[in-house]
């Protein structure tokens, strides 16, 4: 499974995730409370500058990550064309681009295990309501281990459907897919219990 962390090393990579995440929160709030066109335009320019700083290769990867936003831009554009309030539309689009780009920047320049560390740290107070950090860690590990398995099984189901039918696989494939997930869950839970359970090492 590929993560979205950028292989191009930047100065942002060496900043610890905690401060990066805190700055992201502050940036999002600041972007949110200012509704003027000038501010949003300046903010977007600043964000573009942050992407340009590590070089043009990094900049173009960053731009590519903004591309999936186009349907949203289209919807906002069509609505504001209809209401003839273009300035408000531009403000919304600029703010969306800046907010998404700043957040992407944190994702692109942070290693996944550092982020998991941050989540585990943030979840420590939840220990009182029964969520031990270990349970969270096991859940994340199980998810990452079983996602490729489920995708593969799903792809096999689609293949076997196609070998039997001239039509494309329909929603009916979801039933055996969910059944396979439930069966796997049964087996894996047994295996975990047989090895002493998740509670074996209490941290």
């Amino acid at each position, binding site marked *: 499974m590929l993560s*979205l962390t950028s292989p191009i090393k930047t100065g942002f990579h060496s900043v610890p995730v905690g401060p990066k995440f805190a700055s992201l929160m502050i940036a999002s709030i600041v972007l949110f409370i200012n509704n003027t066109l000038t501010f949003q335009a300046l903010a977007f320019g600043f964000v573009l500058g942050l992407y340009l700083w590590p070089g043009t290769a990094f900049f173009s990867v960053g731009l590519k*990550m903004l591309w999936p936003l186009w349907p*949203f831009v289209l919807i*906002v554009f069509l609505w504001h064309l209809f209401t003839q309030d273009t300035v408000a539309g531009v403000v919304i689009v600029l703010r969306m681009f800046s907010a998404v780009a700043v957040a992407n920047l944190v994702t692109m320049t942070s290693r*996944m295990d550092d*982020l998991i560390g941050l989540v585990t740290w943030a979840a420590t107070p939840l220990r009182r309501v029964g969520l031990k950090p270990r349970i969270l860690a096991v859940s*994340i590990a199980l998810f990452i281990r079983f996602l490729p398995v489920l995708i593969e099984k799903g792809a096999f189901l689609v293949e076997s459907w196609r070998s039997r039918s001239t039509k494309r696989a329909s929603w009916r494939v979801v039933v055996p*897919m969910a059944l396979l*997930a439930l069966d796997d869950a049964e087996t894996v839970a047994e295996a975990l219990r047989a090895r002493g359970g*998740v509670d074996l090492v209490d941290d």
Partner: protein
Amino acid sequence: MEKNIVIIALFAALIAALGLVPKFTLVSGIPITAQSMGIMLCGTVLGSRRGGLAVLLFLLLVALGLPLLAGGRGGLGVFGTPWAGFLFGFPCAAFVAGLIMERWRSDNIPLVAGAAAVIGGIGALYLIAVPYYMVATASGLDQALVTAMLPFMPGDLLKAVLTGYITAGLATARPESLLSRC
């Protein structure tokens, strides 16, 4: 305890897999993803608490940077759009759908699961997503309904109906698999 953890993790993975399995279409010719159907299924199959937690785990991994949302999107950026209310509403959607499955003990599973998916996966979801859009864009209800609700409504209705049938299919194949009814 182990079973709960594993089933939550695997259903979270199922939500992701439904958005990533190639060559899979709900209705021929309409490119809508099965991912939000996974959210509804988590509620109707796993019940309120487990279903909600499975969706929370899925969102956590999206936030951590895995490109799991349909179309290969992921990372913290996906929570930055005015439509992010849908993501924040997903756990509630599964929770409410699960709650309805648990409380409405009729044997007509397609009907109950379909209704649970409509009330949770559409009702509860849009109750969060639409106001979120209004606050995020400082817009009125009319704009929010046209730009945040209308484009997704037909697909979501279809998925809710299919969720009813899929849940019923699971109940027929393996009656004990409906944890929402245990």
